[in-house]
């Protein structure tokens, strides 16, 4: 991976003083992850270019870390670290130009203190968010930005662009600032699962961002992405299965939050009135239905990150609240959201969280007054629905079951592509008639009666965004 810094300062070779690296030498700086070298492809009076070339050998890197490292996956050997300007380059840059980054230069302090004409070039910068984001982040810092998207593979034009851009920055910028911009923004643009992360990241951000980050219009995004890398729930076993199936792990992430940003676009609410988000309306509708039927023990099937559990625990009338999810990650998120580790004993005793699957009968599901399937059925492949029905209505058989699911007719009120579903993990979305038919079939087979209700504003044309069925058991056995 390569970074070049050029100046047209006169004499341009003063760059050597500012960087504290002699233009006539090739200097080596050993890094924990490879070897960084600084050399000058050109060093004339009019123009001088310093190059930082970082060689990373992923094989040696992976081997030296042993098999216990958390990123024990295929990506450890085959990755872009040897070529792309990622956070590894940022940390090499911080190390190699340590003094220059502080703005100290005994022999040319005046030059170090003021802006100088600079050109910076990064041939392969990973840039999640595309060339636009590079403009957004570097533009406000006084750079003239040229960012060209790199095609993924010219042999497969249909694959489109890669996540890399060739970035060229030009501007009159103080050198120390320029280095700090790169130090902070390279990992922010990369936004990858960070493979090799040091501990004291907040301090580093504060130091490197001093003087410019506070005024940056995108400082929220920068801070979030920079520090966000720290957050990683390692799921090695799960990741291995994803790889094995030729899948990208992220695409298999559990659907813990519904409708990420897919709220209705054409707001029909009167001006000035704040809209209540749909997921809040839905949660309130479910809680109200549970109160109406007088349930004291509730089982939330497919509890996700525990939003409903949290609402139920807030009401002491629900003496026992259990959450089940098939995803270990969702359960970990729920535990964190509910702060189970610091919950008072009395409240903790009302809560139970466990991993389970809706397509396997399970004795643990029996004995609750009510079970809730809130935005769950649409995540089950249609051929497996009968297994779910059997598990919930046939075997667990609570007195009441509450099911909510999207009303597909309402999708026209959303900014969705034609035919697209509200969540990528949805296996189907039902119209009101389809839902009613399914509900009637379940009632018939398992001896329940059901009451259908709208959730959210009941649009006269396309119906409510969410539909709900409240099932009540009619007989002991069908």
């Amino acid at each position, binding site marked *: 991976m390569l970074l070049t810094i050029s100046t047209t300062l006169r004499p341009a070779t003063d760059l050597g003083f500012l960087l504290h690296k002699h233009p006539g030498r090739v200097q080596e700086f050993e890094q924990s992850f490879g070897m960084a070298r600084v050399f000058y492809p050109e060093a004339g009076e009019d123009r001088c270019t310093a190059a930082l070339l970082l060689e990373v050998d992923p094989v040696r890197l992976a081997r030296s870390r042993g098999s216990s490292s958390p990123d024990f996956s*295929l990506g450890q050997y085959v990755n872009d670290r040897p070529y792309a300007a990622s956070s590894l380059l940022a940390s090499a840059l911080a190390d190699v130009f340590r003094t220059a980054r502080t703005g100290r230069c005994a022999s040319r302090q005046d030059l170090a203190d003021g802006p100088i004409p600079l050109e910076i070039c990064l041939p392969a910068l990973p840039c999640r968010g595309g060339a636009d984001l590079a403009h957004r982040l570097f533009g406000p810092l006084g750079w003239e930005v040229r960012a060209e998207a790199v095609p993924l593979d010219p042999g497969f034009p249909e694959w489109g662009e890669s996540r890399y851009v060739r970035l060229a920055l030009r501007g009159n910028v103080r050198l120390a600032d320029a280095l700090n911009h790169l130090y902070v923004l390279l990992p922010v643009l990369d936004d990858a699962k960070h493979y090799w992360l040091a501990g004291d990241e907040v301090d580093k951000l504060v130091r490197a961002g001093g003087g410019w980050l506070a005024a940056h219009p995108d400082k929220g995004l920068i801070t979030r992405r920079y520090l966000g890398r720290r957050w990683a729930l390692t799921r090695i076993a799960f990741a291995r299965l994803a790889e*094995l199936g030729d899948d990208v792990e992220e695409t298999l992430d559990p659907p813990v939050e519904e409708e990420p940003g897919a709220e209705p676009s054409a707001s029909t609410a009167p001006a000035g009135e704040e809209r209540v988000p749909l997921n809040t309306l839905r949660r309130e509708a479910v809680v109200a239905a549970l109160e109406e039927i007088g349930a004291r023990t509730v089982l939330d099937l497919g509890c996700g990150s525990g939003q409903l559990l949290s609402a139920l625990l807030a009401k002491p009338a629900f003496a026992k609240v259990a959450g089940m999810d098939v995803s270990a990650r969702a359960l970990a998120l729920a535990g964190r959201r509910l702060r189970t580790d610091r919950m008072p004993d009395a409240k903790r005793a009302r809560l139970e969280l466990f991993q389970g699957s809706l397509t396997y009968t399970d004795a643990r599901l029996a004995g609750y007054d009510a079970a809730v399937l809130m935005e769950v059925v649409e995540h089950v492949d249609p051929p497996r629905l009968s297994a779910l029905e059997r598990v919930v209505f046939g075997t667990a058989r609570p007195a009441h079951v509450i099911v909510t699911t999207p009303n597909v007719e309402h999708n026209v009120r959303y900014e969705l592509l034609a035919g697209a579903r509200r969540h990528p993990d949805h296996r189907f979305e039902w119209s009101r008639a389809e839902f009613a038919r399914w509900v009637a079939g379940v009632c018939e087979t398992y001896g329940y009666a059901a009451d259908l209700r709208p959730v959210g504003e009941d649009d006269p044309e396309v119906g409510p965004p969410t539909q709900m069925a409240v099932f009540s058991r009619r007989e002991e056995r069908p």
Partner: protein
Amino acid sequence: MTEISVPELSLVVLVGVSGSGKSTFAARHFAPTQVVSSDFCRGLVSDDENDQTATPEAFELLHHIVGIRLRRGLLTVVDATNVQWEARKKLIELARSHDVLADAIVLDVPEEVARARNAGRPDRAFGPHVITRQRKELRRSLGKISKDGFRRVHVLRGEEIDEVAIAYEKAWTDRTHLTGPFDIIGDVHGCRAELESLLVKLGWKVGPDGAAHPEGRTAVFVGDLVDRGPDTPGVLRLVMNMVEAGTALCVAGNHEQKLVRALDGRKVRVAHGLERSLEQLAAEPEEFRAAARTFMDGLISHYRLDGGRLVVAHAGLKEAYQGRASGRVRAFALYGDTTGETDEYGLPVRYPWANDYRGRAMVVYGHTPVPEPEWVNNTICLDTGVVFGGRLTALRYPERELVSVPAEKVWYEPARPLAAATPARDPGVLDIGDVDGTRFVETRSGGRIRIAEENSRAALEIMSRFAVDPRWLVYLPPTMAPPETSALEGYLEHPAEAFDEFARAGVTRVVCEEKHMGSRAIAVLARTPEAAARRFGVADGTTGSVYTRTGRPFFDEHVPELVDRLREAAAPLWEALETDWVVLDCELLPWSAKAEGLIRDQYASVGAAARVALPEAVAALEMAAGRGLDVGALLDRTRRRAHNAARFRDAYARYCWPVSGLDGVRLAPFQVLACEGRATAVEEPHEWHLKTLGLMDSPLVTPTRHVFVSLDSPEEREAAVAWWTALTEAGGEGMVVKPAAHQKGRVQPGVKVRGREYLRIIYGPDYTESLDVLQRRFTGRKRSLALREHALGLEALTRLAEGEPLWRIHEAVFAVLALESEPVDPRL
């Protein structure tokens, strides 16, 4: 010398005052792990064996340990004073709750001896009054201890204590040393003629005084020999003679039980055909009646046979009761599980225990007449209602073959019409208990395989959210190990090591099969929707599935079309294999068809970054060199890396081509995993598989090129190496070397030898620069994993071929997926 005997599985309660020598006695006669002592438990909960304040909790622990041991079927000895009735009662209740018998061994030593012993032990600080009190309690107990509920109370005194020998009594139900083969015969109910016909049909020689089988088979009767039918005495006479001669075993049925009570003159309701037996027996000589009564009274509740693999009980037996002895075990064996309700005919409603059965032993039973014997979770009911005009049925074991003869007439009108004993378990229903938590899966070829809980959890999520219907998911392919790292310069893998490995394992002939670079695919195909419904229980009209090695479907919306086209291509197999369904192991091409997302995200991205970054680095270095800087080695290396990156790009691109719908998709089958009644993966050599698959003729199907190699022929080895070299140099992934026929024991089922260029996709573009590091790779875990997964895969196929229930197949398939999440170097 005195000898006392205790049951092999029992709770032995030692009784004696402090200082009576219980611990010494226990240490002499039992293994240390069999003895649970109150002093030891007191120490565990208080760090002081004499801390009396810890006594209640010490006993809580003691009971807990004893309970777990009994549940697991282990003989357990309790070393505590047990001089009080309450203490003994709790232990007896504990034994009963686990359906084991309890024996007491009382060490009755004089008070002075106990006192002297305690005086010699400084840690026993309590005063002599304690012993006096215990002694008094013991005295009081001895009078009535026999009424406590122990099977037997052995009282030892004086020298007996030191000299006694302890013998173990086998449980009456334990006939595990008998290995058969058996002919297990359903409820006869006095139908002598049909019984004789059935025995003849089974190959028995039936004479007036009994019957014998020329091949030495043993008959096992499931009980209910008597009542309702025309000749109860005749049946009894025949069976009694056979049992006497050792050619038959018989367990008790509820009708025998009641008949004995009636013969004893007890008050019983004479109904359900009892009247006929009494009538018929009344015509027999008194001597026979007495013999029959003794015979029936002596029948026991159930037998465990063939090393515990087979259990015969009249009404079946759940796993927790097998080999146990208690009133409720006998009641279950005789009457089955009932819900406590009665049906519209006034008969008890039976609880379908077999639906919940997860035991390892096959359970064969009768009691409830059914129109058709049906396997439910490794259990089968053989009562086909001969006396009601049905049939008399036998099961041949271990052949699992059913043989029956029709009733000569309706001998007795049934109280209710015949119906299946257990509502057949919905084939689509699996229980979380089939897959959850840490599990051990028993396999025929690889022993018992452990699945860790953490791995089950990852698999549960993948299985539940993404896998195809479990009824189609009858197999998942195992992982495959590479050979030992090559000793050849420039190679990480080479065929030579694979050949050597198999030769060392005693394999003489191997097949080298071209490794298609695509996505592993399992194709499950049924000839017709009816075949799908019959064999796979899928009745929605679908006729198959094609899924990945993690069980996900290929091309969601095109599955039906892909299945249909494959069924067409498989048409020649229906006749050739005499089957109407088949499971094929294949590779689906191109790789990009399934993996395009991964290729773009992972491989093409790396290629793109390298493609743009390296030439600029080369240019910068060239300029620096032009200035006279010493960058020579770095420049060379960077140029080489640019070259490597280009080859890496070519390596993945070779396995990508555009597909639209199914156009461009190809399938390369290389093994017939299973078909009707046969786990062909186990039974047939690869030559057969490749030849059979050669019958498939379709543009969709790509053949698998292969060569056979006799390992003792250097020429053939050399030719195969040349074949591999040509294959990989032309861009092929490599080859798989397999023993030509299924090999028993710990031999790898296959070893993959991958080509030099292909390995760039695995180890990175520059791996050839780091061969020295990579050659230190360790394949042990991968190889062990491959063997375990292979055993599980074969187990799933065998269970499928033998018609076992879904959960049994799913258990093994799920285990493969769970093992695949074990942390093993994914590059191997």
